[in-house]
């Protein structure tokens, strides 16, 4: 019985396998329509999330399975003080697989250590969010035809942005990758990510505060939101939230083949005027996220189609 807590638990071969299944689901959805018939997914969301929870639920329904769960801690036994371990043991009696989001870092790992069914980390605070990375990877694969030879710009909150850290870790496995880290001084990529992942793997990177100066060299521009919930101090949030806003003018020097990505939700960091630009991929990412979650559910439930 396997869980997915951190994207690095998947080997490159397993990632290729998931991408291959997701692409097959996109091409032949009917083939998978009853793949999980009779199976139940429990979505345990201890903090609010629209996209991820509905994506998991849609994924399970499209596989012919059923869904149960809750969408905030107040409507769970956590409000009565139940531990994550006890919740996981209990839900294991009802469901075949669990998707858990929790504000505390490591909570899904605790759940996986106590559940008797697979647990998928659907986001644990600012720590890991592996299925977002799966969505990002499928998007890159479909837009670029592979993962090698790419210059990837990461822009915005690189300090607290968990999706950024996971994407760097996942993409560092491929050939001839270069990262351009674009952020204000206060939200720079933590030194341990640079040391443990980039330097350790010999991945070239540059850091800058100026998005415009690096725009022409980018194959991918991954924008992130400066998230209010990651700050202890409201003043810091208000000062930094508008640091990088992408507008059509800023894209004038960008490649025609650029892919603009964003884990969503956005606040104002990408102008809506860019939504119709063929280089905008962020809503495709949402759709790809559902397909990758379908592929992941199949893999963890060991369902062969």
């Amino acid at each position, binding site marked *: 019985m396997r869980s997915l807590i951190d994207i690095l638990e998947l080997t490159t071969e397993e990632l290729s396998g998931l991408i291959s299944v997701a692409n097959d689901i996109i091409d032949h959805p009917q083939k998978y329509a009853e793949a999980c018939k009779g199976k139940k997914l429990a979505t345990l969301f201890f903090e609010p999330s629209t996209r991820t929870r509905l994506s998991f639920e849609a994924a399970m329904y499209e596989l012919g399975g059923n869904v149960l769960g809750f969408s905030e801690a107040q409507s769970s036994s956590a409000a009565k003080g139940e*531990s*994550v*371990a006890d919740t996981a043991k209990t839900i294991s009696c009802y469901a075949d697989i669990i998707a858990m989001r*929790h*504000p*505390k*870092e*490591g*909570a899904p*790992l*605790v759940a996986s250590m106590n559940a008797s069914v697979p647990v998928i980390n659907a986001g*644990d*605070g*600012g*720590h890991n969010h592996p299925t977002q990375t799966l969505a990002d990877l499928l998007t890159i694969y479909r837009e670029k035809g592979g993962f090698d030879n790419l210059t990837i710009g990461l822009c915005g909150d690189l300090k607290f942005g968990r999706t950024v850290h996971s994407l760097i870790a996942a993409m560092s496995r491929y050939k001839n990758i270069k990262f351009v880290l674009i952020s204000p001084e206060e939200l720079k990529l933590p030194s*341990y990510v640079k040391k*443990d992942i980039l330097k350790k793997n010999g991945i070239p990177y540059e850091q800058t505060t100026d998005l415009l100066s690096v725009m022409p060299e980018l194959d991918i521009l991954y924008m992130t939101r400066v998230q209010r919930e990651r700050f202890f101090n409201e003043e810091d949030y208000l000062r930094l939230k508008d640091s990088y806003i992408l507008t059509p003018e800023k894209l004038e020097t960008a490649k025609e083949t650029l892919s603009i990505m964003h884990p969503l939700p956005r606040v104002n960091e990408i102008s809506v005027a860019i939504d119709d630009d063929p280089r905008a991929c962020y809503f495709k990412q949402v759709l790809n996220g559902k397909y990758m979650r379908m592929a992941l559910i199949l893999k963890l439930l060991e369902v062969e189609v």
Partner: protein
Amino acid sequence: MNIDSIKDGIVIDHITAGKSMQIYHLLGLDALRCSVALIKNVNSHKMGKKDIIKIDTDYEVDTDVLGYVDPGATISIIRNGKIVEKRTLSLPEKLTGVLTCKNPRCITATEQELSHIFFLSDKDAGVYRCLYCETKAEKPTL
């Protein structure tokens, strides 16, 4: 200064000078009822100065804790006044209940009954990280 030699017990030798008191507390030696000698700043050919702890009873030393705090220390098992076994130490792969995670966002901050578990993430630098949130451990101070 004379300290009686041990008949049956343990000698923790080659302790980095000044660390013996920390080791004494972390290993819980204060709870032992037998003689425990803590010898500081002993002249050492190799180390310049070192500390030694002698425990006058058959005692199972937690090598994970000792290996974490002072991987250069050695353990000698004494039986009938003679050394019957010598153990060297290395940084343990996992530490349970030795370090406390200081990250307020970690699940261990709210669920008090969870064991604090750390894993060795960088052997060369001796860096440990929390199993749950991957926050870097701070060396224990007493």
